[in-house]
Structures are given as structure tokens and as C-alpha cells.
């Protein structure tokens, strides 16, 4: 059913009339031209589509767009402020924490949600909380280092 949805997207008030049952992933990618959020598996297993809704990491491929009403959504495009990269983005660059880059937006946003809840995570905390985000190229060790560096930076 088409409905009007008001929410905040990357700090901007956004109004959208769409079928509320459509998933946030495809609305972002097709209606809002925000293609940084990726389709990886379509069933919530890989985390390439991770975005933040009210600062919680969600799998946008499983998330109906009607559920963002009145909420705040952050995608990879909204992480840098006034042209300044977020500490996580800087740390991913510094540690070469990516290869093909397809899982990267989801990795960064999931890591952001981890740090919002636990600003100084242990090595084990990072592994446990990143475990559901998949990277096929094997950039894992560097992603862990990048999250540690960003945590220090954000302190």
C-alpha cells in the first residue's frame, strides 16, 4: 500500500510516498539514488546492506520502509560531515581495510553501531559484534585494526 513516510535521512528531513512494504534497501537504491548501500544476499546473512536506523544497525534488505517513519536513518553517504570523513572512514583508509570495497559500507556502518554502544570495545567484542558481516576478500584483520584506531580517535 502506498503511503507517505516522513523520516530523517542523513540529517535531512525526507518525505516519500511509496509502498510501505518495500524494503529500505531498494527504496534507498532506486527512489533515493543512494547506491552506497549494497545488495549482497537479500536474506540478511551478509550485512552488505547494513544502515543505521535510530543508531541501530539494521539489515536494510529485510527492513520494510514503513518502519522508518519518524526515525533517523544513516547510510554510508551520510557519515562524512561537511566534507570531513568520519574517523571510521579515515581508519579504513589508513589500514587499507578493504579490497573490492563491496562490503565496506556495511562494515563501516555496523562498526559505527558497535562503537556507539561500546566506545572502547575489546578485540573479542569487535570480533563478536562484526561476525555477521561477511567479507569475501579477507580484509578482516585490517577491519579490526581500523575499528580499534577509530575507537581511539572517537574517544
Amino acid at each position, binding site marked *: 500500500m502506498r503511503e507517505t513516510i516522513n523520516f530523517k535521512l542523513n540529517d535531512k528531513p525526507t518525505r516519500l510516498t511509496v509502498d510501505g512494504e*518495500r*524494503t529500505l*534497501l*531498494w527504496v534507498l*537504491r*532506486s527512489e533515493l*539514488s*543512494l*547506491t*552506497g*548501500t*549494497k*545488495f*549482497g*544476499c*537479500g*536474506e540478511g*546473512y*551478509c550485512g*552488505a546492506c547494513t544502515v543505521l536506523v535510530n543508531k541501530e544497525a539494521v539489515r536494510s534488505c529485510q527492513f520494510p520502509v514503513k518502519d522508518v517513519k519518524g526515525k533517523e536513518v544513516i*547510510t*554510508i*553517504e551520510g*557519515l*562524512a560531515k561537511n566534507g570531513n*570523513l568520519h574517523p*571510521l*572512514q579515515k581508519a*579504513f*583508509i*589508513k589500514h*587499507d581495510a*578493504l*579490497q*573490492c*570495497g*563491496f*562490503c*565496506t*559500507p556495511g562494515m*563501516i556502518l555496523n562498526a559505527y553501531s558497535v562503537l556507539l554502544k561500546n566506545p572502547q570495545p575489546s578485540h573479542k567484542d*569487535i*570480533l*563478536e559484534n*562484526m*561476525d*555477521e*558481516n*561477511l*567479507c*569475501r*576478500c*579477507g*580484509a*578482516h*584483520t*585490517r*577491519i*579490526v585494526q581500523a575499528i580499534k584506531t577509530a575507537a581511539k580517535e572517537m574517544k
Partner: protein
Amino acid sequence: MKKDDYMDLDFSDIEAHFPLDRREFIKLFGGGIIILVSLRDAEALPQQRRRVRPELPKDFNAFLRIGEDGRVSCFTGKVELGQGIITSLAQMLADELEVSLGSVDMVMGDTDLCPWDMGTFGSMTTRFFGPPLREAAAKARAVLIELAAEYLKVPLNKLKAKDGVIFDITQPKNQVTYAQLTKGKKIVKKLDRKVSLKAASEFTIVNKSVSRTDAQEKVTGKAMFTGDIRQPGMLYARILRSPAHGAKIKSVDTSAAEKIKDVRVVKDGDLIAVLHKHPDEAGKALAKVKAQYDLPEAKVDDKTIFDHLLNVAPEGEAVVQGGNLQTGEKLSAHIVEETYLNSYVAHATTETHTALVKIEGNKATVWASTQTPFRAKDEVAQVLGFPSKNVRVIPPFVGGGFGGKSNNKQVVQAARLAKLAGKPVQVAWSRAEEFFHDTFRPAAVVKIKSGVKDSGKIFLWDYIVYFAGERGSQQFYDIPHHRTVSTGGGWRGTPGSHPFGTGAWRAPANNTNTFARESQIDIMASKAGIDPLEFRLKNLKDKRMLGVLTAAAKKFGWTKSKAANGRGYGISLGIDTGTYVALMAEVEVDKKGAVQVKHVVCAQDMGLSINPEGAKMQVEGCITMGLGYALTEEIHFKGGEIFDLNFDTYEIPRFSWLPKIETVLIDAKDSPPQGGGEPAIICMGAVVANAIYDAVGARLLQLPMTPERIRAAMKPK
């Protein structure tokens, strides 16, 4: 060319030529200085020459252009898949040309702008494309210095180039920039002779670690992958997938899907698709298509496949042999005969195969996630009936390849649908389609009979590999009586061998061969009662192999001990794409047979490394990815039906699996660069298998080493 050469070229219908003649080409690129690079002219390319068919282009393979703004563009048919060549190729160019890395723009894989290239695979970019690219840059620098001599009225030998500026060494203020020199010029030079290149001691950018030049785009979401490209009026397709390979459609009912607003159903023989302006809506409509199939009888499954392969294997061919096997057997005190198995595994790239095709008149533009854009160009031309020159393929960033994106099935599907729909059409495979249409690494069998004396000297090696391919099958130990045979037609198999498509998978064949060889070596070490490191040292003469082995042992802190003493250490050695690797690992195995790999050390001799940190990233990627085929990855199937269609049952490595990884790159900067993206992964099966044996005395002969298989091997016999 040998039939199982690791390039596995299959470009029989290729039309190989640069799309523009030289005059058009100059018009297109306007002013500046253009240097054409020809791989075939370079003397140092015997391997490439051997592998390339004679009908491939004789003209040139890449070029670089110095524009009137002083920026340097490198046009190459190679593609960035995550392996980092967008950075390392620019480093090679910048160093020889004496410009900053930041002034180089890489234009990759665009079939209208870049000269023909066979594809990005086999760890060939740096090895074969690197040297001529460096020569072209050196030539460009020589041309610029000639122009500067004229401009500054200074003799050639008094001029030096640095950071895009040429100056008089006796009077450095007397200088001119590359941009000034190229202004108003239209110079095209072909690299027709070898120019002298910098010695390793002169490098300022090469062999230095630099950050990936694509990182900024990739962390901000700006990096464009094929699925991110938009064209006016484009439609998204979802294609009906049959339940099994070999299934024949009996009937199809698309009426329910057709009732959905804005949905178009397209049928063309076996291709049945629904199209919509939104991909998710197309997916919902596809779910309403009902089809009946005739399923072929399932003759094999994931358990019976190995017997089947042995039954259908053709006569093998000796890859290499020496001495006399009977003599070797007589000289041996212990004979070890084992059979090693590995299952089908998927590429499972995070980005599924994607393509967008736009047709205008008799021209087509294609955006595709592909490792072989020029092959895709010809495939699209063929299916549309267009001349090849009317098709342009543009590969944006590719979200992982590993050999899986050398096949362009999704590109052909998108081309057919764009023609039928009369609109641009994007095909992006679902994860289930990705697992179904993938060309898996083949299931394979290796049988080895080997013999060793109590002294620890190996005398016999009789090796036959079925259906993996011969890459990496040649052993490198000092064994007097040996034979290595390969059968089964390489990784694509022989007709009737595999129930679905198989193909190259990161370091094809070598993962299978190295698992078998290095496991067998450890079994012999145990028979002779010798520590596995000492046993290898006794049987090796190759200096480069000894170099990586001792470097790994030092970093790892290996201490001598007979295997199966509960400590959980393993070793594996291998050679791939000219690179030597030694891996050591420490594992823990619990009573349920679950393995945690705690620590992996890799020592790698890859000759000159262009970007050492980039090379380490590839090693870490190999080790992490390799944990998957070692421990969990396996396609379950019955006949042509694939049961693993997403990451719930097909388990790839995760953060919680991570070992501590340490990489030692042997300093070999005076030797030519070798492969970097594949070598370390070949050792992952055996290094973990040998460590499991050391930990719990269980010898695993089949990959992946699942808890169930480990428990079975742990049972006292």
C-alpha cells in the same frame, strides 16, 4: 599450448583488434603525448608469448597519455577486482615517468578506450603487464627530456626529471613542466625497443607501501559498481531459474505476474524474465511465475561424485617424470598410499554477477562486473548480431572475482533482454542465482604412492591428479624416482564429468594439488619419525623454497618435534605463479572436532613487490579466504540440483575465525615481480590438515575438514 595451461584460454571466436585506427585514435585523445605499449615487443615475456595465441593483437596492448594539464592517464584492459592493481600499476608508471602517484589516472577495462586484453586473472597483471608499462613510462620520460632539451636549449645529458618537472642539473631554476611541454603537441610514439629501466635502488615509489588509491571512494559509498549505474528508462530483470542443471521446462504460467502493474514478462526460448522499473518489484513478480520442469535423473551427489570422477576419468598424461618408479619403491622402507578428495566450492563474491545493457540503434553499451570485458564485448556482439566494434563494455569497480567473473552469462542475459524490451535492462543475480550459475572449483581426487627410507630421504613419488588440473601438481622436492600425471581435462572437466559448470577458482588446481602433496609429505615424515620441518629440509634443494621455509620457521618460532604431540603445529609449502610460499599454522581442535586456527605465518618470495603493504593484504586475504575451503566450504547437491543457495548453509570465513596473521616478504627486489593474489591460498588446506594431525593425531584426507569428518578421523581405528 598445453591443453591444461593455467590460462585456460577459450577465446576461439575472439575478434582481436583495437576499435579505432591510429588516426581516429589520435583525434579521440586530442593533444598530448601518447606512448603505446606492446607486450609482444618486450623481450622479457616468453611465458606470455607462449600462452597467447598467434591471432592476438600484434600492435599494442596499452598506452599512457600525458595530457596538456600534465596529468597522466594509463589506459589498460585490466580490471580492478579488489586486488589493488589500480594502485600498483600507477606506482610503476609514476616511478619511471617521474611524476607523483597522485597525478596518475587509471582508465581500466573500457573496451572503447583501452586496448585489447585477454582478461584479469592468473596473477598476470604485475608479472606480464608491469614490465612493458614501466618501459612505456621510461620511454615517455625520454621523449619529454628530448622536448625539454629543445625548449630549454640545454643538452640532454644535463637534464633530469623529477615530479613532473625537467630541470638543468647545473642550474635547477632553468626548468619546464611536463604540462608546458605537452601543450599543443600531438605526439604518438610506439614503444618499439627496450628502454633501460630504473634499478631497484633508484625506486622512489615502487617497492614502497602506499595506501590504496580507491579507498576514499570505497569508504564513502561513491565507488560505482555495475549495479549502481543508472540509465534513463532502464528496467530491472529477474530471471526464472530452473530447479536443477539439465532441467527442461514443460510449462510456464506467467498470468499472475503479468497482472501486476508495470510488470513486463519477456520470453525468449529458455529465457523467461520479468521486468520492472524497480528490482524488488521485479523479484516479487517473479515469485508469482509458476513453471513445471522435467528433471533429469540425478546420477551423482556430493558423496558419490568422487567414485564417479574416477570412473569417467580419461587416460592421464604425464606432466613430468624421472628415474624409475620400481627402483624408487625398492629403495623405500615405508610406502605410503593415500587418496585425497576435495569438494566443489563456490566463488561467492560479495557482489553477485551484474550487467546493464543499453542498445541504441545498432550499438550497445554494456556495464558489467566482469574479469573479461573484451570477451564480454564479443559475446554481446554475437548474441545481438552486431559488429564487435559497435559494442562497448565498461567495467566499473568489480566486487570480487576469484575466477568466477571470467564467465559473462549475466551479460548475455542482459543483452538479450535489452533487445527484447527495447529499453536498457539490468540483470543482477540473486544470491541463489549466484550459487546456481557459478562455475565451481571442481571436485577432485588425488592419488599418491610415495616411499621414504628411515633416514628420511624420499625415493619414490607417484602422483596422479583427477579433474583439478595440473597447476601446482609438479612437486619440488629432491626425489630421484618420480612421476606426476594429470587427467580430467583441467578445471573445466571433460564432457559428462561434472553435473554443472566448473571453472577457475583462485589459484585453480593448486589448492587441490598442494593439499594432497603437503599432507603426503607430513605422513611420510611421521612414518620416518622425523619432525615435519626437518623432514622437508632434508628433502629440499631449491634455494628459494629453503629461503621461505626457514624464514617462516623463524617468524613462527617452530621447534622440532615429531608430529601428533598435541601442540597443533602445521607446515605447508607451495609454488604458484612464480611465487614461493611457506605457511605455518597453529590450531586448536576441540572434542567435537571444531577447529580454531590461532596463528598463521606466511613467508613469501614474490620477487619485486610493487606495493609491499598491498602484497601483504593479498596474503592476508588468501589466508582468511582459504580457511573457508579448508574448514567449511562445500557445495551439497544431488544431480543438477544445488542445495546451498545462500550464506546460511554455505559458510564462508567470519571475524570470529580470524587467526593472528603474520607475513614475511622475502627481500627480492632485484628479481622480476611474480604473482601475489593467489599463492598463499594454496597452502591453507594442508597447513590446517597437518596442524590438526599434530594436535589430535587425526589425518584428514578430504576437504573441507568439517567437525564431522574430524570426529570420524579422531576415532581410534
